[in-house]
């Protein structure tokens, strides 16, 4: 006998592992070409007149959830503990919800300007990209149980493309008069990955309005490397064994990608730029790489008692629900096998125009080609003010496919050789991360000589 009401806590956590991934497009950073870390958006960017730059840690996160739910909606303080609570969010979810998340840790990087207007760069970063599409029915079923959905078929299939990798890069820039061209090659070492199989993404639970007969259908499969090592559906619950996520600098999962960019100074006031990032980006996953698949159909109608036994009282009403059989339908088979994932392809373009000595206005754009979610884009207009040489303030209005009301900002300080900055494409969610459905923030520190 199983505990049919066993909370699928692991499933909750897996879901929130995704939900907690929130995000940004780094449009504001892109307008700050004098900030060293903006080099990550265009390899042609190199602070003017600087010969040696040591990039210290920088952190960027860009996360968006398609419907307006926030961190604080989900993680609720109750007494002295934080609880996961779906009560506040389920009604706000769309029938199909999208979540994408990009996270970037620039651990260290180096830039050197050589004679001949050549710039060399090298760096190490850790990146995470997650694109998840999930139906409202999934958290609703996990949270509410199937009781409220009698007479309905809930499709639960989640589409996901999640990857976490190290990025070792070396770049070369060359200035040709007003034109600077940058090229960066990146050696990628994958840490972990989860990719759903686009051909097998169906899972559904139906609860009949008759006497609640359950119909379970699954045609679902995904690849996983170094995230999930086993799925145990015994006891109706779904226990997912997660691989210890110790970060490794190198692994057997390798890949490469390229960034290219240009910057063109039209005149003393106007500068144009464009870049394409992660060209040909692909990682081949073969470390603890497995294919998990679940295929089956099962109808549970309860016990079938012979009427004659019932009438004669020779049988007993045995309420052993025998739902263990559900294991047969949700049982995932695990097959070892390598696979590849493509990195999201990103592109920036921008222009800036100096207005007087301390003001700069600009126009920027961003396109991201993602796998399971689809393309995202953003365009924005910015204004920047440098009241002093060591401080820069900026603002940006941008719009993207989700919102037309994004007011970004940046603050950059440069006390001596230290350059520190904080930027966001959305001021409100930057200062109130937990109350925003979208998060976009970038911060970092560098030594610039």
């Amino acid at each position: 006998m199983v505990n049919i009401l066993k909370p699928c806590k692991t499933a909750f956590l897996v879901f929130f592992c995704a939900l907690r991934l929130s995000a940004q497009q780094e449009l504001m950073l892109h307008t700050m070409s004098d900030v060293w870390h903006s080099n990550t958006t265009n390899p042609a960017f190199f602070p003017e007149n600087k010969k040696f730059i040591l990039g210290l840690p920088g952190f960027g996160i860009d996360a968006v959830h398609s419907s307006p739910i926030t961190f604080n909606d989900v993680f609720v303080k109750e007494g002295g503990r934080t609880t996961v609570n779906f009560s506040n969010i389920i009604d706000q979810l769309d029938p199909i919800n999208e979540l994408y998340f990009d996270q970037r840790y620039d651990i260290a990087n180096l830039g050197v300007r050589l004679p001949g207007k050549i710039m060399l760069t090298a760096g190490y970063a850790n990146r995470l990209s997650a694109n998840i599409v999930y139906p409202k029915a999934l958290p609703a079923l996990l949270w509410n149980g199937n009781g409220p959905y009698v007479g309905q078929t809930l499709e639960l299939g989640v589409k996901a493309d999640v990857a976490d990798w190290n990025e070792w890069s070396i770049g070369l820039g060359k200035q040709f008069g007003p034109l600077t061209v940058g090229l960066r090659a990146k050696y990628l070492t994958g840490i972990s990955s989860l990719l759903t199989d686009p051909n097998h993404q169906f899972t559904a639970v139906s609860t009949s309005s008759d006497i609640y007969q359950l119909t379970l259908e699954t045609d679902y499969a995904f690849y996983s490397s170094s995230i999930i090592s086993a799925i145990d559906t015994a006891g109706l619950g779904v226990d997912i064994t997660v691989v210890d996520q110790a970060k490794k600098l190198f692994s057997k999962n390798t890949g490469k990608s390229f960034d290219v960019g240009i910057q063109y100074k039209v005149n003393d006031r106007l500068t144009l730029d464009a870049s394409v990032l992660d060209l040909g980006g692909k990682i081949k996953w073969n470390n603890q790489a497995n294919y998990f698949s679940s295929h089956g159909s099962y109808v549970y109608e309860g016990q079938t008692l012979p009427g004659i036994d019932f009438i004669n009282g020779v049988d007993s009403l045995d309420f052993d629900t025998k739902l263990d059989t559900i294991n047969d339908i949700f049982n995932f088979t695990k097959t070892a096998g390598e696979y590849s994932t493509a990195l999201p392809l990103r592109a920036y373009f921008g222009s800036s125009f100096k207005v007087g000595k301390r003001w700069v206005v600009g126009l920027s754009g961003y396109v991201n080609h993602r796998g399971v979610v689809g393309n995202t884009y953003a365009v924005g207009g910015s204004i920047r003010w440098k009241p002093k040489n060591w401080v820069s303030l900026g603002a940006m209005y941008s719009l993207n496919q989700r919102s037309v009301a994004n007011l970004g900002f940046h603050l950059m300080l440069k006390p001596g050789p230290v350059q520190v900055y904080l930027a966001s494409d959305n001021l409100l969610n930057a200062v109130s991360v937990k109350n925003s459905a979208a998060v976009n923030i970038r911060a970092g520190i560098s030594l610039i000589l």
Partner: protein
Amino acid sequence: MNPKTMFSKHILRSFLLLLLSCIAWQACKKSDFEQAELGDHTAEFAFPLFTTDLKLKDLLFNVLNDTLSGDTIFINPDNTMTLFYSGDVAQKPATDIFKFIESGLVPLSSDTVSNPIQTPNGVSISQAKLSGGTMSFVFSNPLSDTITGFFEIPELNRNGEGFKHPFILLPNEQNRVFGSFDMNGYELNSSSNTLTFQYAAYLPNGTKIKVPNQANGFPNVFAVFLNLKFSYVQGYWGYQLYPLTRDTIEIDINQTDLRGDIKVVNPKVTMRVRNSWGFPTRGIIKYLSFIGQNGEELQLQGTAFQNDGTNDYADFAYPSFIAGELGQEKITDIYMDESNSNIADIFNLQPTRLVYEVDGVSNAQLDPNLIGFMTDQSVLGLQMRVELVLEGSAKNFGAEQTLDLNFDGFGSLDSANIESVEFKLVSENGTPVDINAQIYFRDEAGTDIDSLFDAGAKNILNAAPVNNQGIASGVTRTETFIPMTAARFDRIRTTKTAFMKAYFTTAQGGTIPVKLLADNSSTVKLGIKVKKRLTGE
């Protein structure tokens, strides 16, 4: 720049750095969700428990047929069902009624003795076949000479050879037994219902003599027969009265403790006689009455029987000697239904039993020329049967059933966190019968702990629609929701048996007769919703 300005500038730079750090930390710290627990909330789970198909035929077998082994439900070709309540088959072998003397001794005081055949009253034999037994002759020789001779019974022959055997008696030889001779296969033919025992005795000089009697007059010659068996007897059967059967048929459809109001369309009583006696037999109905609910006698009266002024009677068909029907069985059925009796009125009073007593009379018409027969296989069997086609109406006809329960499967529901449950009972009824039921949950001692419905019995099956012939013509779905608090559910989970009282009412409130067909069935299903408090602890 003055020192104050320089100081302010450093303070401002430091403050801004701190602000940046705080914002960055606030944005990025993960401790909240890493330590998060599942929030307390209530979830509701719904799942099916069981489905069962109840066939009306099985239900009727259980309700109507669980006490008497002689009851039978017969499914007719049109799927209607007939309920038979049958009495014991009273089987009377002819040899039980008409007993012939099997053993005896015939003294021969002369050399020829004609002895009447020992038959039952009113019977004289003209022909018989023996299937067993022995015959012996005993001689004593009072003379000093040897005696030789033979003895015989001329009416007996086997395969054309008469019963005749030689004997030799030595001088003064006493009680010399000749035999025993097996009589199996001998035929007896006598036109006068007598047997002739005779002998011929001779002295050594050839003189024929009669063996002298003893001094006291007792003969010195005897014929002795033992255990004679007749496989066939033919002769004249005169008038003779004898008891056939007395029996009681329990009508348990009307014997439940639960009250109900049942009307049966066209009840019928059948008397069936299977007769292989080869002479006319009349059944005298000495007693034929139903017994009512309160023990009152409800006499079954009608025109199915003839009446001789004193008793109802019926002449049973029989295999005729004249027609050469030896070995045949003749069946006589006598029906009493609403067309020829008051049985319909009686059944409206829900009688509980039928009591009947029948005697037999041979050659009731006193035919002096009657030639009949009987064999050792001749049997007259009489059975009374109450026959109820299951067509009628019922109001609150009751039945009971006890079912074992096993709620062990709910043990893992962790009842501490169950807030409430709600059972959903669904019936899809293809029978023309409403079922109003209550279930009492009982502990191991049989004590009622709780009941399924708070407010008394409920209609859990509503009758299917019926056509103008009273036949179910569709399916009626009934949904019954049974909510329970967690405390009540916990209490019920401890019970071991469910005692169900069900009350059956036919379609339209029992106001019209319906036909109960063997293929009528109902599906009963049960599902459950459980509300449970889920916590992260």
